[in-house]
């Protein structure tokens, strides 16, 4: 009998085109997602070298990082953003790549639209010039972010030169307490293993909690795997996965469906497969999480307090913590629920899907955004937006005083007009609380959509369970 393999090893093995003596492999890439920020130099490189693009049919492009989330009819006003978006359009035309442009109703954040179109499927290798490509691992696809030179490499060869990663398994067992979501699970994991805890690994998420998550929840978990430093996240595909994919525009056609599913069922890790590292969390111990610092690992349960750097022994950590608290304008010992906020951002590839908007709407319903707080909802895609409007969520939000926007990355990274002013504090459902991420001098607290909606209502960080 052959050696039991992990899901990562199975997908890896089935994509090796060629292995060099030193272990470096040419790995075949099944799907390539492209956006406007990390692709112009790659297409340019292709052109300069006189190379053709190997598989435009396996590639999908979308403009998401730079696009305005309001007044789309008048176009893009920032000339540099406009040039980048126009460059994507002309590159796609020249090389024959399908593009969802800003006016396409399917347009949205690259990691939302891939799954939504059924492009993301189990067993695939998927790449994108974007670190949050890890999102697609929720389907049991090996998906990871690459740099622009690698984007060019994939455009030209449909392959990458890679060495296999190590295997880690993170198991979350038990049942999630009421009010605790996929976002809280992944924040708790990052808090436990740290932002470099996953470096060099592909992380497989397992356990009853993960199996019980919807596809949206699984995507939230895998999306933030990169914030733990891991190359990719993976979740074994099951009926939840197959039901999600079935019938989507780019799903396997009817005639191949049973064959595809039969193949997908073989992907889960074999019993007895070994991991280089194992981590276990007990779901019952996880409370709603918020970050207090400038790295996703600086996270605490909402019932907690801003920690005290003076209680940390290690000098480098102490300094980093002091610096973070200074940047965040927080005093050690402050009760987290006493922290007032100025803005709320609900959206991003972490939490901009329909289920996230439903969770936020459930909190917002019949309530009002606190005086002095600006709260924005940015759906992850045009289709998410349409679905939400069909369910009447937009009305709930607007009645409560939220701003209902057009889809895109928006204030997740503030490359368009949506940004924080220096010193402003934001409750955000995105994935990075780095200094300046949401605007120079802006202060970001990461949390789940329900928690962000609760913060909008009370004007401060809030335990959503107390609003019920």
């Amino acid at each position, binding site marked *: 009998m052959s050696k039991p393999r992990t899901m990562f090893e199975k997908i890896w093995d089935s994509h090796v085109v060629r292995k060099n003596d030193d272990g470096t492999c040419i790995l075949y890439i099944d799907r390539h997602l492209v956006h406007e920020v990390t692709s112009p*130099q790659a297409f340019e490189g292709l052109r300069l070298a006189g190379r053709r693009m190997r598989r435009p049919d396996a590639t999908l492009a979308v403009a998401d990082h730079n696009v305005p989330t309001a007044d789309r009819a008048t176009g893009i006003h*920032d000339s540099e953003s406009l040039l980048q978006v126009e460059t994507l359009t002309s590159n796609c035309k020249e090389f024959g790549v399908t593009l969802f442009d800003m006016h396409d109703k399917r347009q949205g954040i690259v990691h939302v639209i891939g799954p939504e179109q059924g492009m993301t499927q189990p067993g*695939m290798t998927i790449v994108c010039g*974007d*670190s949050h490509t890890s999102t697609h691992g929720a389907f049991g696809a090996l998906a990871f972010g690459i*740099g*622009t030179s690698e984007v060019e490499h994939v455009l030209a060869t449909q392959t990458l030169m890679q060495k296999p990663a190590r295997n880690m398994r993170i198991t979350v067992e038990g049942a999630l307490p009421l009010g605790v979501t996929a976002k809280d699970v992944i924040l708790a994991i990052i808090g436990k293993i740290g932002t*470099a805890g996953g470096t060099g690994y592909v992380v497989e998420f397992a356990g009853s909690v993960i199996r019980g998550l919807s596809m949206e929840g699984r995507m939230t978990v895998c999306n933030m795997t990169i914030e733990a430093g891991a190359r990719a996240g993976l979740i074994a595909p099951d009926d939840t996965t197959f039901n999600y994919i079935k019938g989507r525009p780019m799903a396997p056609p009817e005639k191949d469906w049973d064959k595809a599913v039969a193949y997908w069922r073989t992907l889960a890790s074999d019993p007895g497969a070994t991991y280089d590292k194992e981590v276990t969390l007990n779901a019952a111990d996880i409370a709603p999480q918020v970050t207090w610092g400038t790295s996703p690992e600086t996270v605490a349960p909402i019932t907690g307090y801003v920690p005290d750097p003076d209680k940390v022994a290690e000098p480098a950590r102490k300094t980093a913590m002091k610096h973070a608290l200074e940047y965040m304008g927080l005093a050690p010992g402050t009760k987290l629920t006493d922290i007032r906020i100025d803005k709320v951002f609900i959206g991003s590839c972490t939490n901009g899907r329909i289920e996230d908007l439903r969770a936020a709407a459930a909190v917002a319903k019949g309530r009002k955004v606190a005086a002095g707080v600006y709260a924005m909802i940015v759906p992850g895609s045009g289709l998410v937006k349409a679905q939400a409007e069909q369910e009447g969520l937009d009305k709930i939000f607007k009645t409560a005083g939220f701003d209902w926007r057009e889809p895109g990355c928006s204030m997740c990274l503030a*490359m368009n007009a949506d940004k924080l002013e220096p010193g402003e504090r934001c409750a955000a459902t995105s994935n990075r609380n780095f200094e300046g991420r949401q605007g120079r*001098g802006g202060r970001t607290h990461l949390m789940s959509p329900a928690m962000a909606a609760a913060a909008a209502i009370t004007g401060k960080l809030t335990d959503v369970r107390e609003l019920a």
Partner: protein
Amino acid sequence: MKAFTVLKGVAAPLPVPNIDTDKIIPKQYLKTIQRTGLGQYLFDEIRFTPDRKERPDFVLNKPAYRQASILVAGENFGCGSSREHAPWALLDFGIHCVIAPSYADIFYNNCFKNGILPVIMPKDKVDILMKDAEAGKPLTVDLPRQKVLRDNGEAFSFEIDGFRKHCLVNGLDDIGLTLEHEPDITAFEKQQKGSQSWLYK
């Protein structure tokens, strides 16, 4: 790509862990469609005030380090966004080598594609090199021999993947190398199309 063999130069100390790529180059400079010209924005928010005046206490603004070609940094350097603008900005500024205890994967990878050598050194060795850098002592990085030489002649060895070293030392372009194996890629596609036809249109 320019080949990397032996580099002797000024080393700038940046003793901070978890320097993310947003910090190396903030998003407002990602709107370019070129690879060059980003050096002026390297470490933008810690190097300049909001009205674009140099912060005199930031290392690369100090006269001794303006010509730095080596950066000595803390753990998990280059974490966060996959933006290759980070190595482009380092290179455009003139940094050809980073020495740190550890790196984030994507950044580490991106360095090699641009002829930058990211040296991984144990923390205690980095601490020593950091002190050298702070004292303004130059360092020599010898990639063929896999050594970092201190000014006093002491040598610290480092490990590096053989293939990556080969490409860097010879300035080889990955795409060209891969395309030499195009028949293998075509054969793979044929086999995959046979077993998983739904992956092809």
